[in-house]
């Protein structure tokens, strides 16, 4: 099963470990991972900002980078939604790109719903609050990523209040509407910390970068991790 990895610009610039984890998890699931090196950005930042002209330019480039015959997978719901649904808004006449969030691809296309942990001490449970990133809504995702993490014996998923609420990132919104964005994020973090979770796990580095920025600025007692890193650590 060949798949092409769309790394995403955030993982390209800051969070390489998430990309590495994605490759490890996909390979573990039996995929042959291809990484087209001339990939850049999916075009989402200008798309969300309202500059569709600039977005189309980038999207055109992106579509030439990837082979349309091979599924594209990406460790971000929002980039997957951009390439699959956003491009369809840019060009309503073109077919939807075959692009999937990694967990979505594993669960819905490969039928994988659990991972075996190779950790030495599977009985010491890590309390995890799982934040479902909002772009999963645009992809029709529900609990796919969370289910994979919950299948690990060393993980205990803890519920928290107002779980369905957005983290407040919203791309450039976090910078242009800083007060609103941080207010929404602080509410999310408060609910997560109140739940007793040790780690906040999610599937989008946009959300996690924003929440981490708040956690560090306010010195809050919680850590964050991408769910693919949690999976990769367990199967290593």
């Amino acid at each position, binding site marked *: 099963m060949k798949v092409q990895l769309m790394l995403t610009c955030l993982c390209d610039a800051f969070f*390489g470990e998430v990309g590495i984890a994605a490759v490890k998890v996909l390979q573990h699931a*039996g995929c042959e991972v291809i990484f087209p090196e001339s990939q850049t950005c999916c075009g989402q930042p200008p798309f969300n*900002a*309202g500059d569709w002209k*600039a977005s189309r330019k980038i999207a055109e480039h992106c579509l030439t980078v990837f082979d349309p015959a091979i599924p594209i997978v990406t460790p971000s719901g929002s980039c997957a939604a951009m390439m699959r649904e956003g491009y369809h808004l840019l060009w309503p006449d073109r077919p939807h790109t075959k692009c999937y969030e990694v967990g979505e691809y594993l669960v819905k296309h490969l039928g994988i719903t659990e991972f075996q942990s190779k950790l030495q001490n599977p009985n010491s449970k890590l309390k995890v609050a799982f934040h479902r990133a909002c772009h999963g809504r645009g992809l029709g995702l529900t609990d796919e990523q969370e289910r994979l993490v919950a299948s690990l014996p060393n993980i205990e998923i803890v519920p928290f209040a107002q779980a369905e609420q957005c983290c407040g990132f*919203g791309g*450039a919104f976090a910078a*242009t509407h800083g007060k*609103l964005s941080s207010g929404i994020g602080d509410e999310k973090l408060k609910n997560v910390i109140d739940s007793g979770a040790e780690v906040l796990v999610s599937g989008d580095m946009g959300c996690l970068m924003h929440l981490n920025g708040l956690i*560090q600025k306010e010195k809050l007692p919680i850590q964050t991790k991408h769910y693919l890193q949690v999976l990769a650590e367990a199967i290593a």
Partner: protein
Amino acid sequence: MKRLPVERFARQLPQAKTDSVRNASAQKTQSRLTALASSFYNSEEARTQAAQIKDEVLDNLPELQGQLVQNCKRNGVQVHFAKDSAEANQIILDICKRVAPDGGIVVKAKSMATEEIHLNHHLEEAGYEPVETDLGEYVVQIDHDTPSHIVTPIIHKNRKEIASSFERENLGPYTEVPEELAMQARVKLREKFKNAKIGISGVNFAIAETGRIVLIENEGNNRLSTTAPYVHIALMGIEKMLAHESDLPLFLKLLAGSATGQQLTTYIHLISGRKREDEADGPSEVHLVLLDNGRSRVMEGPYRDILRCIRCGACLNVCPVYRQASGHAYGHVYSGPLGAVLAPALEGIDKLGHLAKASTLCGACEEVCPVKIPIPNMLLKLRDEATRIGAIKDPVQWGIYATGATKPGPWRLGLSLLPMASKIAPHPMKTGWGEFHELPHREGRAFRDWWKSEETSPHDGGVGGGQGGGASAESQDKDDHPTAYNSPLAPDPWQTFESKLTSLGGRMGTLEELPTKVAFLDPDLPNIPNLETTNDVWQADIGITLADFAIAETGSVVLSAGNNRARLASLTPPTHVVLVKEIVATLEEAFARITDRTSVIITGTSRTADIEGVLVRGVHGPKELIVIRQE
């Protein structure tokens, strides 16, 4: 960086206001889920059906409007067309001047359409005294404020603020008890209802095939405003039509569930025209004003789907930005996700296109919308259009970014420098980001370096060794239930009815145990011994009426006009006693049998939750509802 208005507003909003809005919104989001789960087997399917029905209405608007006008005229309703706010205000003022040339009280039921045309201002200028009679809207009016939510206008106020306002207006001794505050408003507004010659309302639905105007509410003020005065004027956006009465059960349940977390609202008023000869009360004139005000234009463009909106407010309640900023931040009658699309669509993207920026695009609004309006996609389209016409300017030069992002070499170099660059160069994103966030830094290995080293070394047995399977495993959780709605019923419909009625603040009773108080009786009731009676419905302690039938699944009773009955008998006395013989199982069956006379579906007691979400019974209508089953 110049801040956009919603962010600017949020920055000066006291934390207490944010807390009020956020808590009430979260509560309503939760009760919506519970209500829809109890109303529908499959609320997802219900939403899809409702979206299709509204789409068909928009597709056939001219024909349906023709039908509506014809059937309204047949019912004795006078129909007027207003192409914009100015015309609508003029039409309404002309009616007022003819009916009450010397000015006077105009009682108003809650209506977003009248807010949209700023009707109160025009009425005041012409020498009238408009009185908002919904508890929340009344508070807004005496405070010279504006509603900050389309369903819960005082979501931003707490009970202390309301108590101070009531004390200032001499409504009674200072109290922070919601029930006492509601009673003070009840007493004050009773006089207004009695003395008003004109009542004005909005419209929730107008039915093309019957010409019926449908109004829903919980307090009873809407029924009073549209029943007691000499003339009733209803103002309606042209899109708020349904083709058939049989569409109503779906929409009534979706609207009540989405808006207030109820199965049905207390009152569903089905107005079939002016008072007829065999009716004891009701307005002698009914006017329907059809308001365009930009809607025809919106119908032709890319934001047409927003006209499916039934004004439930669920998208406001669930929206993280609305919860932080409150409705006032949007600077328009329509706020939240709905307003961020509807306001610029109606009033111009050049003026209000910036509202589309006040969103994280999280998609929660679309997920809760009872008519599945794709709000996030429309916000994206609005951003594109607003950018193209120069109404909004982004702090980032995306053209330059795009050039970089289409050249892989420079792009890679740029990315590798970014973690450093973000620390030194001041730029707009950094200033905005850095105010509340630490800047991101590189964590661990760089992917591209790792990938290169992986490619040159053999893989560690991963490829082909996993647990992958080829078959797609799309989940097949199909619901087997044939229709999207109806709830399972207990075998005895009266048993279901009683349990519902009790949960809604009503109870079953007998004629023998009625309290010895002064009663107003429907003329077609048999004589009840040992009961002191009055002919003045405003003075009665008890109103005793007949119901046509009861509805088991919702615990409702259905009353219709005719036989010289008084509509106010079920409304003005503090206790409503209703005699009923027959019962139907579902709301769908009820609509198949409801008469074509003006009718009301009563589901529980009059109620409000306007003050901090606290439930108060008996605000304008009866506090007590006793149903007596007749064999």
